[in-house]
């Protein structure tokens, strides 16, 4: 993975090599869209999303399993964004529902950490693109090991207490459909990651707590939360 001298994280997970590009789909979990209620039809949004709403977790956000997540000064809580991550295995451009999954190398767990923010009108880079705000689980589970990526249970625990249980069966765009709609206008390359969507309400954590995300068949991702960061 390309990284500058000031971005020391290496995320290679043999035999897979990550590109360092992580994309995420906002509001692609039905619970997340439902949580906004009638607001989706009001200003500033005016209408529910038509196309996938995507964001990027840039390379400075990437972090390993076990790495500390820093709560910035002036912020009391962070949101845990537990998501299934698709790892692209072949150049993926203009996919069809029939061939989309064949372009995956496999899966991992993404924690799309955010400073809680509303509205979703502008890309909230300062809330989502902070250093270390995208821990990834340390191994890619091969595609062949997962019978149905649209039927996986996702659990988030904080300090050992179960805080959230969701399932990938509730995606607005299931995995194949999401890949079709995204690759209609942007090509995904081998090693790119696409986080399929975070359920609402996202658990919140404070400095001193420990996050554990488990996805059925994929594994777990654990990160402590620390404070007093810039």
């Amino acid at each position, binding site marked *: 993975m*390309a*990284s*500058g*001298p*000031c*971005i020391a994280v290496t995320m290679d997970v043999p035999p897979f090599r990550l590109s360092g*590009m992580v*994309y995420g789909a*906002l*509001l692609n979990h039905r619970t997340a869209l439902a949580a906004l209620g009638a607001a989706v039809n009001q200003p*500033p*949004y*005016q*209408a529910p*999303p*038509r*196309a*996938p*709403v*995507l*964001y*990027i977790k*840039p*390379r*400075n*956000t990437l972090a390993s399993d076990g790495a500390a997540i820093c709560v*910035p000064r002036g912020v009391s809580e962070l949101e845990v964004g537990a998501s299934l991550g698709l790892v692209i295995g072949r150049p993926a*451009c203009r996919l069809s529902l029939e061939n989309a999954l064949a372009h995956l190398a496999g899966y991992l767990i993404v924690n799309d950490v955010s400073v809680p923010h509303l509205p*979703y*009108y*502008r*890309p*909230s*880079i*300062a809330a989502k*693109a*902070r*250093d270390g705000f995208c821990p990834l689980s340390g191994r890619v589970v091969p595609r062949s090991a997962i019978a149905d990526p649209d039927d996986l249970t996702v659990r988030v625990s904080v300090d050992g207490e179960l805080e959230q249980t969701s399932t990938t069966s509730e995606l607005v765009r299931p995995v194949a459909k999401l890949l079709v709609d995204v690759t209609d*206008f*942007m*090509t*995904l*390359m081998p090693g*790119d990651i696409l986080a399929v969507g975070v359920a609402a309400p996202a658990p919140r954590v404070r400095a001193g707590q420990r996050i554990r995300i488990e996805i059925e068949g994929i594994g777990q991702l654990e990160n402590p939360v620390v404070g007093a960061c*810039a």
Partner: protein
Amino acid sequence: MKLARVAYAGAIHAAQPCELADGRAGVALTDGRRLAEEAVVWLPPFEAGTVIALGLNYAKRASELAFSTPEEPLVFLKGPGTLLGHRGVTRRPSGVKFMHYECELAVVIGRCARGVRRVEAMAHVAGYCIANDYAIRDYLENWYRPNLRVKNRDGATVLGPYLVDATDIPDPADLGLRTYVNGKLTQQGNTGDMITGIPALIEYLSSFMTLAPGDVILTGTPEGAINVEAGDEVVCEIEGLGRLQNTIVGDELFGR
């Protein structure tokens, strides 16, 4: 120094501008070959890391779009698939009504930057190039606007032709920008009219994210972005950085 990356005769080369024997502008590969501009395939002039772009960073552009000046810089990110070199082609999907270019100064980071104050910010800049950051307004939605379908399309962010060393551009806050469509001047501005200038942008961004060498900031476009059609030739020009050429093509080239 001005450096390009070009593909020629089976390999990728570094290249510099030169004058050819017949007086035309050409490129000199590091191995001594001197070639016409159109004899090589131009790639983005450096391997880009994180691509950061600014919206509404020129006051008249903001008012043109009926927005007030944002309180905080409007920042969005792009992926590598959208990048394209000089003399490339960009697809205009059939049926869209408003696709426009955006001529922008691209600032390339050369040294790690974290918590950098604006007085020290320019020491973190490696150099500059021209960016043409296309948008298709038909796809705008009010969710993380401007969304990736508008701004992160394959081959719709042109960079180049050269990466020009920062030392060759003594005042990046006073560069004329011009865009020509089929030879006609359609956009004109000056980097001095940015709402948030380069040092303040580096201070703002590095306050929450580490900028690394190769990261690039597209600093926004002035007013005058008009619709372009398949077949149009778009040239973005920035004083001291050269001319960045691009051609709009239709769906049929892609079998759509």
